[in-house]
Every structure is written in structure tokens, then in C-alpha cells.
């Protein structure tokens, strides 16, 4: 059922609680990027996409989403659970032995909602393009979505894929870049500058949308709707979505330090105090 902006915000708050609790429980994982991409993933699964949580791998007639930056698995798992792909109690097994919720997403343990393993960066755009080609062959005009980290764009395979999609007029493909400007070793501009991403994607033949408010739910929904309206016009679409790493938890925001660090008990309590429990903790 399609959620309105207020409902989406409520869901996002619960997802953020799940993220910090999951990462705290196993004392590992990636809270920063997960919190930053929460609004995007919640908008996608609860408002934008046409998808079926009963889960069929081939997903004919359904929109698809591929998470290329697999390290933000906590947000992906929480969103999938709330969307009904599996019971949210399973979120408590994240990163633990014998769990379907591996550190990085995988199909290998049969977790519903996951269609490809990701974690080793730069591969998801190629996979999404393949899925979009299959849809075209099947006469299926639904949309394929992806999410990438901005640091991930340093991988060469991304640009192989970026060249292929416009050449083949894959115009039911919407890629989103989590443009938070941070990566493990520091600000992306210091580690390896991405330069003018808009100009780069345009030069490759993509339709580029820039959204400076990637943590404002109404803005996220609007840019995704805008992207949808641009499908079927001969070009793939990329959204450069400015987000804040760690968004929603004050002490995690605006720094790469919380890329892959878990909060301690005290930090967890501080974080949860800032995030309303809207749908019940797992």
C-alpha cells in the first residue's frame, strides 16, 4: 500500500531505529551510509516501486531494485522486513552466525528481496542493466532502480556500465548516487575527486537529476517521481542525491567516522532518544 509523506517519515524513523539497534547488537556494520539512505529506500519501497513482497526471483511485471553499495545492508534489510519480505524479528540475527542477513546482502542464504550479492563495489549497475535487458526481451516495461555510493563511482566497472546503458537506450533504468561526499579514508574530494559528476554522466548520455535534499522525504519522493516521468524517452536516468552520512543521529552526522563503526551502549541510548519508535522495535 502506497504511503503518504507523513507515513513515509514514520517508517523512516523506525528504520533508523532498526539500523542503530542492528549494528549495536552485533557491534559491527555500517550505520553512516545506512542512515543517510533511509529516506531514499523508504520512499522507493513504500511509495515509488511496484513490487511484490511474496518474492519471485524473476519478478516479471515488477519493478526491481539493486543495492550496489552492499555495505549499507542494515537499511536494506530493515526496509525489506517492513515491506513484508520477511519477519522483522529476523533483523536481530544481522551479521550473526547462521543468519540469512549476512554482513553484505546475498542470495546465497535465500533471503527474500535480495536478487544479487553485493559488497565488492562497482558491480550493481551492470547487474541492473542485465535485468533491464531481460525485461526488454520479455516485453516487460517495469523499471529497474539501483543505488550506488559516490565513492563507489571510483570503480572502473561503473563507467563500463555507464557507457553501455545509453548506447543501448535503456530508458527504464533509474540509478541513484548516494552523494554524501564521504568514504572510508575521508571526504571523497580528498581521497579521489569525482569532479563534475553531472557533466560526466551527461557526457556518457544519461539524463541527470540533482536533488540537494536527499533526507527530506517530500523532496526524495518528488525527484523519484520526476525520474519516473522521464523513463521511456531514450535515455537512462541518474539521480545525484545529496544525503548526509549518519542523518538522523546527531553525533553520527557529517563525518566519515561512522562509516563502519558500531555505537556502544551509551551511544545507542543517545541515538534512540532521537528516533521515535513508530512501528514497534523488532
Amino acid at each position: 500500500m502506497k504511503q503518504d509523506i507523513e507515513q513515509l517519515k514514520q517508517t523512516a524513523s523506525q528504520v533508523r531505529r532498526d539500523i542503530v539497534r542492528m549494528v549495536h547488537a552485533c557491534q559491527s556494520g555500517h550505520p553512516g551510509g545506512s542512515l543517510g539512505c533511509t529516506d531514499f529506500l523508504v520512499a522507493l519501497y513504500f511509495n515509488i516501486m511496484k513490487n511484490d513482497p511474496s518474492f519471485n526471483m524473476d519478478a516479471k511485471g515488477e519493478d526491481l531494485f539493486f543495492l550496489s553499495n552492499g555495505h549499507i545492508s542494515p537499511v536494506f534489510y530493515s526496509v525489506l522486513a517492513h515491506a513484508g519480505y520477511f519477519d522483522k524479528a529476523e533483523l536481530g540475527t544481522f551479521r550473526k552466525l547462521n543468519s540469512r542477513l549476512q554482513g553484505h546482502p546475498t542470495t546465497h542464504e535465500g533471503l527474500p528481496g535480495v536478487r544479487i550479492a553485493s559488497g565488492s563495489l562497482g558491480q550493481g549497475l551492470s547487474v541492473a542493466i542485465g535485468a533491464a535487458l531481460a525485461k526488454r526481451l520479455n516485453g516487460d516495461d517495469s523499471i529497474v532502480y539501483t543505488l550506488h555510493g559516490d565513492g563507489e563511482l571510483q570503480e572502473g566497472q561503473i563507467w563500463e556500465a555507464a557507457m553501455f546503458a545509453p548506447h543501448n537506450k535503456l530508458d527504464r533504468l533509474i540509478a541513484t548516487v548516494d552523494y554524501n561526499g564521504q568514504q572510508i579514508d575521508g571526504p571523497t574530494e580528498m581521497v579521489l575527486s569525482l569532479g563534475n559528476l553531472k557533466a560526466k554522466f551527461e557526457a556518457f548520455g544519461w539524463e541527470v537529476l540533482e536533488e540537494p535534499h536527499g533526507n527530506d522525504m517530500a523532496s526524495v519522493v518528488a525527484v523519484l517521481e520526476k525520474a519516473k516521468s522521464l523513463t521511456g524517452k531514450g535515455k537512462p536516468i541518474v539521480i545525484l542525491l545529496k544525503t548526509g552520512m549518519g542523518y538522523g543521529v546527531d553525533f553520527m552526522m557529517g563525518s566519515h567516522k561512522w562509516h563502519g563503526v558500531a555505537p556502544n551502549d551509551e551511544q545507542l541510548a543517545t541515538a534512540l532518544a532521537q528516533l521515535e519508535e513508530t512501528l514497534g522495535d523488532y
Partner: protein
Amino acid sequence: MKKYTYTDKKDTRSGFGDGLLEAGKRNPEVVALCADLVGSLKMADFIKAFPERFFQTGIAEANMIGMAAGLTIGGKIPFTGTFANFSTGRVYDQIRQSVAYSDKNVKICASHAGLTLGEDGATHQILEDIGLMKMLPGMTVINPCDYNQTKAATIAIAEHHGPVYLRFGRPVVPIFTDADQKFEIGKAWMVNEGADVSIFATGHLVWEAIQAGEKLAEEGIDAEIINIHTIKPLDAEAVLKSVAKTGCVVTAEEHNRLGGLGDSIAQLLAVNNPTPQEYVAVNDSFGESGTPAQLMTKYGLDAEHIIAAAKKVIARKKQNS
């Protein structure tokens, strides 16, 4: 020694091209991708028959493997085509994560394997690909011996669900297997029954093994020759049954002795029935430029070397007893 003759010679890559066309006719879900080597992979007939089911990826092998993984989502059966080096070493992590670990039904089809693409030299040769691929959990590894078998294998892997590495080559080699054979993945093929030594060969080294077997027979040595076209899963039953009879082993492959067929057999035997074994394989080196025939001789991959290895291992067996 059972007599094998041939009337025609062809490259095994042509067996792939013709098999791909046939697989495409039998199943509309079969699609193909190629990274700017359509001619070398003999994919032209498939492309002509099914232009909408072919994807030219350009010189971008990593993207090709990722797209192949994605195409399976939606029910397609993708066959990727490029040289063996660019099919494996160049894209190992893409195969590992997006294909093998993700359990995707992708067929990685690799021409110009081993030394025998010849003059291009070591940048384009690969002698490590069997090892790289067999180490991946769930990956099937197939290395057929001639045109007919490569064609049959190509058709068979389309009907098999799961990731497959299919290895073939450029040199023109004798066609000595049946045109209408049924290819059974994982089932070793008895070429010649014998009692004195087991020669397990793969790829076009099977023909060299047959040549070796004929000469050994002239000297009174009765060689059993088995074609191991499927290196993984290995037909353990066939190997152990043969070795129980002969008590010594020669393995023959166009691959580094590290990580290839020989190692798979040695591992099986070490656990089940430790047996003297000699390797006919490249001795942990890169290749170089030369004609295929020159390279086969220089790197010790021909019938003469199989004969020498057989005599040596038989002597070792006798020493032990």
C-alpha cells in the same frame, strides 16, 4: 588399443559457435554476450539468427559478466564469450560475487584457452583458468576434446541450471568423437580400456593421449585412456575404478600443473587411494609466442611427453611393489 580415426579437423571454438546456434534454436531464453570478439568466438551465426538476443558489450568484460548475471533475473540463459584470459582472470571478482556466490545461471564460454592460440603470446594465453574457476563453489568446469564434443557440451550446458565455465580453443584438431553424442556433464568418457596405466586427459590432449596409447601398445604397454571433459564435478567413481585396476596415473592437460586436472585427480587419490602420478602440464610458467605445434612441444604437452610420463610412472609403480 581401440582404433580412432578422423576424416576432418576443426577448431573447438567452431563447435561452440555451432552449439550456441543450436541451443538458441532449442530454447528462446538463450542469449549471448560478447566483448568485441564475435569472429574469434564464432558467434556470427547465432547473431544472424537471433539479433535481438545478442548483446555486444564492447571491450568491457567486467560489465559483460555483471550484465549476464542480471539477465538471469527474468529467466534468460546468458552465454558470455571472450578469450579465456579475459573470461576468468580479468573478471574473477565479478564472476565470484555476481555469478557464483549469487547462484546465477551464467555460462562463461572461453576460447583461446591455454598456449595454443600461439603467436599472440602470454598476455593472451592463460594456463591458470581451470584452477581459478574450479575453486569457485558451485562452478561447473568443462573442457571438451574436439569440435563435436564442444558442440554437444554447449547444448548440454544450456539445459543445466547453474554457473558453468566452458573452455575451448583456437587450434584445428582432429574430430574423433560422434557427431550425435549426448554430452553428460560430470561423466568421464572411456576412450580405451587398459590395464597398465591410467591416462586421464582433458581438452585436445585427449587426442595426444590416443596417439600416445597407440605407440605404447606397440611396445606392449596397455594404457587405459579416459577423457575427463568435466573437471568439476570430477567423475570420482570412474577415476578410482580405473586406478584400482592400473595402479598408476598420468594426467594430461593444457594448463599449469598447479591447480588443473592433475591436481584434482591427485587430491582425490591422496584421500582415497594414494597412487604414483605423473603430470603432463605446463611447469608453473607463462607461455610465449610461437606456433601451436612448437609450443606444445616446447612446453611438453604432446604425445611424446605422455609416453615418457607413462613409462616413468609404470617404473615407479613397479619400484613400489
